């Protein structure tokens, strides 16, 4: 008996020691993906839900993509040139690219895609993202020139997301509004079937432009809204990779056999919006009192089970723009006292914060509530359903409101909209001409080192004015089975499956 055990053990060791290359890049198989929510529409020019982008990244190729270090890499655009002081972008397109319906991808298609996104009738959410693009011209069948109304450094990174995804003109003209359920792109997988709330299936596109890719035959997305059930599905082998694990389950996942866990910094920020036009937050010193009253490390330890990073500005640790030398965000009761006195409220004050009725966010607010209580500030928590919370945010109907931002690859997308006096998401009505100047300068500056210095000033000024109380930057966590190989984990959290293969089917 003993001998048998030894023999088997020996066999296992031998098999395990076989070089990895011997099993590398197996072709075929189906990967089953556990999602937190179902896709809402398959039309990237109409999508507003973050979850949609997961499927898009495998169905649509984009003009450009980002890599793990936020470098811009070619996709449908092979090369590009920035001219005229950042006002003109010339893209040389890849030749021989076909859509899933067999039609050809070329410069006319790019122009048509941009016209579609900019068409006011379509009311595309992409329209504001590409607002700086004034004109798109076809120079030759595989060259496109974009002219901007003012220099806009984040343009390329905007094109790594939905605005850069090229859809088939023939398919849109054929299906019209039903394109939302009949997507056609140039990505590694083509759309097969979508049974809403049950599964969405993609199959390998044999005419994909990257030779030898993809390895998988099929990708099946399964929306499982409850995070515990989703994690159970992962543990019982119902799914091979999962999106959005609850922070409390990360430790368990790490000890689970046959499971790989990757934890990197995301693009998110979480924080409290303080309405700069509602008393008492009209007074800078009062906002600063709240800034110094919260202990962001406690929030990270308790509400997020130690995952992610304390948040004290719009830029997460994943971004080159984060100013790691900045330290003026620690809890400091003495400073709180001084600031309260300076703001004319030495005995504290009371206010109501609105928040989303979701466990982690409630816990986060409760911690803030307890910490404020200690310095004599009475914060009442009012929990709302997400749609109502958004409505209150957009109509400036709050004194304080807690909400997060999923982030954009370029730092501009995490700061300009919130901190610029004309920013589209500046619902707190914060206005500081110095801040506007810094943000505009950083947006039109092409040199990353110079932009970094500008964003360091943005961070400091934002902390000084405290229109937002940043609290946390979420970790971007993915969990997958050890049979899943070749998965590259990128901060935007998108699961790109073209290079993934399974060593067991």
């Amino acid at each position, binding site marked *: 008996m003993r001998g048998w055990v030894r023999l088997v053990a020996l066999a296992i060791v031998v098999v395990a020691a076989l070089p990895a290359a011997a099993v590398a890049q197996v072709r075929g198989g189906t990967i089953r993906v556990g999602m937190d929510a179902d896709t809402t529409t398959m039309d990237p020019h109409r999508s507003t839900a973050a979850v949609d982008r997961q499927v898009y990244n495998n169905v649509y190729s984009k003009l450009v993509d980002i890599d793990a270090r936020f470098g811009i890499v070619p996709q449908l655009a092979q090369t590009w040139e920035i001219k005229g002081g950042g006002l003109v972008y010339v893209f040389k397109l890849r030749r021989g690219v076909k859509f899933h319906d067999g039609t050809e991808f070329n410069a006319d298609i790019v122009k048509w895609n941009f016209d579609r996104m900019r068409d006011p009738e379509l009311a595309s959410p992409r329209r504001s993202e590409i607002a700086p693009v004034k004109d798109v011209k076809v120079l030759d069948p595989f060259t496109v020139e974009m002219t901007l109304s003012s220099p806009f450094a984040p343009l390329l990174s905007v094109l790594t997301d939905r605005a850069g995804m090229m859809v088939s003109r023939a398919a849109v003209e054929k299906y019209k509004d039903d394109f939302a359920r009949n997507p056609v792109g140039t990505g590694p997988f083509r759309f097969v079937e979508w049974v*809403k709330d049950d599964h969405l299936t993609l199959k390998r596109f044999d005419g994909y432009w990257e030779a030898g890719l993809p390895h998988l035959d099929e990708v099946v997305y399964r929306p499982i809204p409850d995070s515990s059930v989703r994690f159970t599905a992962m543990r019982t082998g119902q799914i091979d990779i999962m999106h959005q694990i609850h922070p409390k389950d990360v430790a368990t996942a790490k000890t689970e056999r046959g499971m790989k866990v990757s934890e990197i910094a995301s693009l998110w920020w979480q924080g409290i919006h303080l309405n700069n036009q509602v008393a008492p937050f009209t007074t800078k010193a009062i906002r600063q009192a709240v800034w110094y009253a919260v202990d962001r490390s406690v929030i990270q330890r308790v509400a997020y089970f130690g995952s992610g990073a304390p948040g004290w500005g719009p830029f997460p640790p994943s971004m080159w723009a984060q100013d790691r030398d900045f330290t003026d965000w620690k809890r400091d009761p003495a400073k709180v006292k001084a600031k309260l006195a300076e703001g004319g409220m030495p005995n504290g004050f009371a206010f109501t914060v609105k928040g989303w009725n979701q466990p982690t966010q409630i816990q986060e607010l409760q911690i803030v509530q307890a910490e404020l209580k200690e310095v004599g500030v009475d914060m009442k928590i009012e929990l709302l359903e997400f*749609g109502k919370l958004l409505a209150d945010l957009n109509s400036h109907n709050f004194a304080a409101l807690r909400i997060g931002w999923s982030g954009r690859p370029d730092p501009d997308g995490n700061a300009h909209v919130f901190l610029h006096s004309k920013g589209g998401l500046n619902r707190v009505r914060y206005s500081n001409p110095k801040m506007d100047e810094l943000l505009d300068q950083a947006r039109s500056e092409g040199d990353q080192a110079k932009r970094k210095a500008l964003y360091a000033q943005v961070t400091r000024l934002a902390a000084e004015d405290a229109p937002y109380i940043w609290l946390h930057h979420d970790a971007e966590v993915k969990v997958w089975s050890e049979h899943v190989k070749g998965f590259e984990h990128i901060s935007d959290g998108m699961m790109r499956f073209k290079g993934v293969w399974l060593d067991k089917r």
Partner: protein
Amino acid sequence: MIQFLARRLLATVPLLFFVSLVVFSFVHVLPGDPAVLFLGEEATPETLAKFRTRLGFDRPLVTQYVEWLGRALRGDLGRSLRTNQPVTEAILQRLPVTLELLGAALAVSLAIAIPAGIVSAVKRNSGVDLASTVFALIGFSLPNFWLGLILIYVFALLLRWLPPSGFAPLPALADNARSLILPALTLGTALAALITRQLRSGMLEVLRQDYVRTAQAKGLGQGVVVAKHALKNALIAVVTVIGLQIGGLLGNTIITESLFALPGVGRLMIDAVFSRDFFIVQGVVLFLAVGYVLSNLIVDVLYSYLDPRIRLG
């Protein structure tokens, strides 16, 4: 009988009209602008306005209601704002899942409640009676989602007997059954508890009646007396309870379907509420209201079968 059915069906028309009015107004007074939820937070006021015009949300509510109702009467409930799928198609696609789930939950609850109710009435104050009372109390008090999570933990994670989530459609009978056992238990336990209590008290009542004593005096066996004479009459109360609980059961499918990731009508509705997909919400609620009215009609018809003294007409 036919006259009764016709009259009852006719009476539902004003009711459904009222329901449609309530549904429509509720959906439109919900805080939260669908345009913002659809176009994202960065949308410009101009884009938002375009969107509202395209969908007719800028017109007076009365106009919107009349148009919607007119189309609904012709069987057209509109299209999903997100996927452009016709609402009726979306509902019909999901309906088999929800009906199967409801049927399975009902079967589970009857399978538990009928024996438990009978035994605890016949053997009143025995250990079995106590056990069934305790089950009823616990079963009724447990929150649905919690029970579901516990069942998933035990049967999917620890024992690995059943899948934790997902729906396997027919005709794969074995997989289909496996995918519905835990959801049916989750949904059916509270109803089982309620029926057990109803049946127990109904049986106790009936067993005291003279005709039961007569039957026993004729020398009929205990089994025949209980099954043929007592149970049938005690079932009237049970049928009433089930009829009343269908609404609650339908409501709980939302939780059960979300927990077990089943693609049913409940989940269609809750997703639509959160994304303010108005036409879907209106369509589903109207549809459920019709279903509820019809199921109560069936209950009324069942009465006359169970107790011929109840004459419909």
